[in-house]
Every structure is written in C-alpha cells, then in structure tokens.
C-alpha cells in the first residue's frame, strides 16, 4: 500500500516544484526584460544628454555648470523612474 502511495506523492512534489521553478523563471525573465529595456532607454538618453551638452559647449565648462548638468540628468532619471513605476502600478 505504502509503496503505491509514495510514487504519487513524489510525482505531486515534482509537479509542485516544477510549477514553482516555472513561475520563478517567468518572474525573473519578466524582471530581466523590464530592467534591460529600461537600461537601454537610459543609456540612449544619457548619450542624448551628453551630445546636447557637447553641441552647446564652446569653451571648457566650469565646475558649477558641470554640477548643474549632472544634477539635471540625475533628477530627470529619478522623475522618469517615478513616473514609470506609477504607470506600472496604474496598469496593474
């Protein structure tokens, strides 16, 4: 009797484990896609920021101007991240 039950339990455990693994895999691949797409967007935006600064720079910039630029880039990305997370929350 016991020998007949064990394989079913084992099989159920295997199915459970496989389901968890599958869900975890889907979750992490979803995360990976989101993170990598955001990274690509951010990289291209940083490149645009740098190009725009280069385009407007005629002389060597002073420290204050450079700080303004980095501050702006940082706030832009923080705002963008907040906006994106709000959007994801709203869309569920």
């Amino acid at each position, binding site marked *: 009797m016991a020998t007949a039950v064990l394989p079913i339990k084992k099989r159920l455990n295997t199915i459970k484990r496989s389901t968890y693994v599958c869900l975890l895999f889907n979750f992490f691949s979803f995360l990976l896609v989101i993170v990598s797409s955001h990274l690509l967007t951010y990289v291209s*935006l940083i490149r*645009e*920021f740098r*190009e*725009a*600064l*280069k*385009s*407007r*720079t*005629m*002389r060597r910039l002073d420290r204050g*101007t450079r700080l*303004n*630029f980095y*501050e*702006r*880039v940082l*706030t*832009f990305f923080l705002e963008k991240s907040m906006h994106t997370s709000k959007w994801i929350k709203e869309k569920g």
Partner: protein
Amino acid sequence: MDKGERVVVLGINGSGKSTLLKILNGLLFPERGEYLYKGERLNEKSLRDPKFNLRFRKEVVLLFQNPEVMLFNPTVYDEMAFGLRQLGLKEREIKERVLRWAEVFGLSPYLEKIPYNLSRGQKQKLCLACLLILEPEVLLLDEPTSNLDPKSTGLLIDILQELNLTTVISTHNLSLVPELGNRLVVLGEGGRIIYDGSVDGFFSDREKLIEAGLMHKHRDKPYYHLH
C-alpha cells in the same frame, strides 16, 4: 549646400534623419566620405582645436528632437544666457539679447522659472531661443514642430523665413514641407538618398512617394502626418 539654402529632410523612422543632423553638427562622424564646413574638414581632431570648436559651435547649432536633453540650467534666463556667457559677452548685452528673444518666443513671464518645469511646447521654444540668441549661420532642426501647437508652428515658420539662415530641418509633417524649405532630401531605408531636388517635383512623383514609404500604393494621397 549653399549659404541661405533651406533643406528639408524627409524619411520614415530609422532612415537616419537624426544621425545626419548629428553628423552635420559634429557630434557623430561618418564612416565613409567627409564633411567639409567652409572648406575645412570636420572631424574629431579639428573640433579639438579650441578656436575652431568655438567658431563652429557658435555658427552651427542643433535643436534636438527631445527638448528635455538640452535644458539643465537653474533658470530660463540662465539657459538663454548659457551660450552668450561662453562667448564672453558683457552681462548688459547678454541681458538685452535674452529679453529680446524671450519676447519673440513669449517666454518673458518665465525668465525666473526652472526650465524643465515648463510645458513641452514651451521647452521647445526655449531651446530654439537658446540657439537663435547666438545668431548662428546654420540652423539644424530635428522635428521642430513635433511639440508645437499650430500657433507656435506658424511663429517658427515666420521666424525661419524672416531670418533667412541656412537651415536643415527634418520633419514628419509633410504638409509643412513647402513652407519649411526650398530643397527636399528624402532618405530611404538604410539612409540611402532617394530624392534630392525641388519640393514640388517630389510631391508630383507618385512612384518616388511610394518608394520613400510616404504613400501607400493603394492610396492616391501621401500620408500628411506620419506619426
């Protein structure tokens, strides 16, 4: 390109319009061929020369498609004065020029405001003001009307016609092409030039419109707005 020429660059997404403008502004460099500005070869080496860089960046200016990336100064006034301060102008002249151009673009009430809190259309106008205040010789505009309402678009067209600068404008808006320029360059896939000539000549050539992806073969009118 000749002095005073107004060129409109048309093409589907990914055809290389923005890349072309960045090459003309010395931000990217072509893998083949060369770019001569007033007879001088433009490359990374020539732009490392402070004198040439100063002259080139003052004379050839680019309006980016996304105005957000161009603004980083604490106030609208500082943003407009940024280029002028680099040119070493006196603060009195800077103020006079800033006030004049702010008036032209309706930005006078916002001079003490933070630039990135303005609306998208106002940001676009501010960026344009920051460039025109330098009194450039060549104006490169990457889809300048994409964030503007009809009134501001009209203002931009009036300013461009009045200033009579050498301009290269990329646009998606076919209906504005005759007003924006007198020469049309159409880019196809992979950045290939499929038309270079008069504006009227292109719009009456059905085959070219279809080839450029600006008209479907089953339609009898081009897509006036590609967005």
